[in-house]
């Protein structure tokens, strides 16, 4: 494992209070260098200009958001095709979960959720991203298990609904 490095995180969340609080708490607890935007369009502009290690993306605007993820993974955005991604959504059926899994999404946060849950997810992803060697040393695939073990508890399956479950693991 390479030396820990600073992580850059992008939060894409249309709900203003949630966006402000999550970004504020992540900054205060030093979970990484955080940028927060309200829309997929804003996210795309930012991701064309900057690299992010961790992305937390709301699927409130699902087609556009998934399209953004597809372009991210296709390398169409600046150097972030291997970013660690969590998404938030009001629901997640089996087909959507399979699609997200194919796009390398690490975690689905089902709304409504607590800010604490998002912060813990961000902490896990940032820790995993920080542990990844700099580009050229090795790929990120070898760290996937570590990322999962730190945050994903394996206590829920994607698409299982909201009954007693506030988060679902898809990777």
């Amino acid at each position, binding site marked *: 494992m390479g030396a820990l490095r600073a992580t850059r995180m992008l939060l894409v969340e249309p709900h203003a*209070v949630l966006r*402000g*609080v999550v970004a*504020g*708490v992540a900054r*205060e*607890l030093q979970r990484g260098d955080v940028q927060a935007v309200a829309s997929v369009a804003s996210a795309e502009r930012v991701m064309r200009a900057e690299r992010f290690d961790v992305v937390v993306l709301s699927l409130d605007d699902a087609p556009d958001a998934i399209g953004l993820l597809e372009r991210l993974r296709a390398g169409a955005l600046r150097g972030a095709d291997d970013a660690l991604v969590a998404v938030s959504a009001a629901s997640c059926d089996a087909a959507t979960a399979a699609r997200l899994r194919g796009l390398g999404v690490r975690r689905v946060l089902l709304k409504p959720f607590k*800010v*604490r849950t998002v*912060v813990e997810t961000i902490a896990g992803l940032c820790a995993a991203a920080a542990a990844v060697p700099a580009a050229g040393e090795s790929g990120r695939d070898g760290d996937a298990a570590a990322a999962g073990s730190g945050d994903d508890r394996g206590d829920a399956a994607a698409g299982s609904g909201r009954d007693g479950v506030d988060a679902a693991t898809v990777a």
Partner: protein
Amino acid sequence: MPAAPIPENEAERLEALRELLILDTPPEERFDRVIQFAAEEFDAPIAVLSLVDAERNWFKSFVGLDVCEVPRDVAFCSHAILQPEVLVVEDATLDPRFADNPLVTGGPGLRFYAGAPLQSHGQRIGTLCVLDVVPRRFDATDIAILRSLRTLVQDELERRTEPA
């Protein structure tokens, strides 16, 4: 019951509060949505945006109360504005400042308080606070969340002072 001391900078503090022209104004959605969020985030039965006036603690926005102000000498927020950090009272019955407070010994039977001071023009004018009728723990993440919510309220308060 020891009333909270009056801050040395009380005159300047009240001037900063009154410059906002917010006392006794109607509810505003921009504040209400933050207070509602706080109540839901912390599963708290009571959440308040309070402003500490000369003789009263007036509530600009609140969840879980049926009054819009309480006398300053019984208000937890009167203590919270004495310090820059979040004031956490995990069990008011165990805290000599609050154990015989009528809001603790009588209705509504408050036990827990966490309040983040709100600043305007460098003065602590009120708090964003959550309260409960049972004792609670409040950890570093909770404090960070409350501080972050406080920042959103302060941003909105600062907009009130910007020229139109």
